[in-house]
C-alpha cells in the first residue's frame, strides 16, 4: 500500500468538516430547561457526553445541546446531530437515529431518513465504516438521542 493511499483513507475519516466540528462543536451547552436528556458512554475509549433536548407540547424539538468529552469523531457526530435534529418532530428525530446508525453500521440500509430531513452533511461520517472500531464513536450521540426519547432509558452505551 503506498503512502498516498494511506493518506487518502485517513483523510476520508478525518475530513475537514469533521475536524471543524470536533474543534468547534456547535450547540455545546447545557440546557437548563431541557425536557429530555440522556447520557452516552463509550466504555472502550471513555467518550462521555450528555445530550439535552427541549421538546414542546407538539412533540417538536425546539432546542438541542450537548456537553462532554471524547474523540474527534464522537464530538463531531454530536455536533452534527444537534444541527440535524433541531426543529424536527420527535418521531422524525428518532427516524434519523435509525437512518444514521443503520447507514454507519451497514446493518439496515432500508431505514430511510424522513423525507423532510437532509442528512447529506452526515455523510462526512462515512469514513468510519472502514474503521470498525470507530463506529461506536460516531453513533454514540445518536444512541443518546434515542435513549433520551425513550422514557425507560437514561444511559446509552455503545456496547
Amino acid at each position, binding site marked *: 500500500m503506498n503512502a498516498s493511499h494511506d493518506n487518502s483513507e485517513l483523510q476520508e475519516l478525518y475530513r475537514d468538516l469533521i475536524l471543524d466540528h470536533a474543534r468547534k462543536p456547535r450547540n455545546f451547552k447545557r440546557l437548563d430547561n431541557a425536557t429530555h436528556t440522556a447520557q452516552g458512554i463509550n466504555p472502550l475509549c471513555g467518550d462521555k457526553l450528555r445530550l439535552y433536548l427541549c421538546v414542546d407540547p407538539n412533540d417538536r424539538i425546539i432546542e438541542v445541546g450537548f456537553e462532554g468529552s471524547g474523540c474527534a469523531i464522537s464530538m463531531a457526530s454530536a455536533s452534527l446531530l444537534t444541527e440535524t435534529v433541531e426543529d424536527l418532530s420527535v418521531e422524525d428525530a428518532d427516524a434519523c437515529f435509525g437512518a444514521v446508525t443503520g447507514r454507519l453500521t451497514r446493518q439496515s440500509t432500508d431505514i430511510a431518513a424522513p423525507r423532510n430531513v437532509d442528512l447529506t452533511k452526515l455523510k462526512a461520517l462515512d469514513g468510519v465504516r472502514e474503521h470498525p*472500531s470507530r463506529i461506536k464513536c460516531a453513533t454514540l450521540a445518536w444512541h443518546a438521542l434515542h435513549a433520551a426519547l425513550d422514557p425507560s432509558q437514561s444511559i446509552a452505551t455503545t456496547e
Partner: protein
Amino acid sequence: MSQPRLNSPTDIATCRDDFPALHQEVNGHALVYLDSAASAQQPTTVIDAVARYQREDHANVHRGVHTLSHRATELYEGARDKLRDFVNASSRTEIVLTSGTTESINLVAQSYCRPLLQPGDQVLITWLEHHSNIVPWQLVCEQTGAELIVAPVNDRGEVERDQLRDLMTERVKLLGIGHVSNALGTINPLSEIIAEAKNLGITVLVDGAQGVPHMTVDVQALGCDFYAFSGHKMYGPTGTGVLWGREALLEEMPPYKGGGDMILEVSFDHTVFNELPYKFEAGTPNIAGTIGFGAAVDYLQSVGLENIHEHEKSLHDYMVHKLVDVDGIRLIGTAADQASVQSFLLNDIHPHDLGTILDHQGVAVRTGHHCAMPVMQRFGLPGTTRASLGLYNSSDDIDRLISALEKARQVFA
C-alpha cells in the same frame, strides 16, 4: 478469521476422523475413549480455531482501537452470538461467559441467592446432583442461614416426582436441578418439573453440563431461569462456560466479581457497573478458549444434535444389551430416559481396579464417585465404573469394552 466449515452436513459415521486424540495407541492398543462425560475430545476445527487465533489475531478484547484488538473482540463476541443461538436465548445480553458450569452456578449462588436468602428459606436440589450443583448451595446456605433440602431418587436413579413436588413450598427460593445426571445418565423430565416450580414462583437453575452435548436445548422452551453449561463437555476447550439467565433477573443481581471490563466508570466515590452481560465478566476472559467454544458450537450444529442424539441412543442401547450379558455385571442407573452414560459394577472388583485393567487394554473409562458422592451413598457404593459415549464412539468401542471386562474377570477370578 472463523474456521472453515463444511457446507454439507457432517456424516456422523466419519466424525471420528475429526478428532486427533482418538487416533493414538494407549498401552499398546488403539485408544477407546469412553470418558466423554468427564471431558470430551476436541475436533480439529476447535483445536485449529484456538491455535489460529493465538498465531494471528490475539490481543486483549473490548479495550483497544487497534486492528488485532478489534479482530479479537469480533471473534470473541462472535462466539457469544453462536452460543446465544445454540440455546436460543432471547438476547445476547443473557449469555454470560464464565470459566465453566461450576463458576456459573457459584455466580447464581452468590449474586442471586446470597442477597435474597433469609433464615427459614430453602434451596431445593436432588440426590442426583454433581458436587458443583451441591456445594455452592451448601456454602450460601451456611452464609445466610437458609436450609438445603434434597429430593430423593428411586432405585433406578430417577428423581421421586411426588416427593420433589411435596418439597416445593413457598419456603423454597430456588430449585437447582441437573438436566442429565453425569453419574447415572438419568435425563430429568425438566419441562414438567420446571412448570411445577414456576407455578409456585420458584426460581429454577438447570445444571446443563451434561445436557448440551446430547440434545437440543432451548432455554425459552424449557422455561427455567438459569441454565449453566461448560465448553469442554461439548467438544470445546476447558475453562469456558456459560451462564444463561433471564435478563430481568440478571439485571437485578449485583456483580459477582469486580475488575476490568465489568464497569462503566470507576471513581472512589462512585462506581457504575457495565451493562449485561459485561457486568458479570470481570477481567481478561479466556479469549482463545471461548473462540474454540464457538467453533465447537459450529461443529455440533454441522453434525446436528438430532443425529447425535439418535446415534448415541442406539449405541447406548447396544451397550446396555451387551453389558447385561457379562457375567457378574450390575448396572447402576436404569432410568427409563437415559443419556449415553452407563455406570456399572463387575462382581466385587473395585471400580478403581477395574479402571486400571481396562486402561491397560486401551479402554478409557471413569471410575469412582464421579463428583456425585451423595448419589453413590444413596446406592451404598463408594463408586462405580462409568462408560460414557460421545458422538465419535462406535459399536466397535463397545465390543472392545466388553472384551476388556471379560479379561478383568479373569484377572480377578
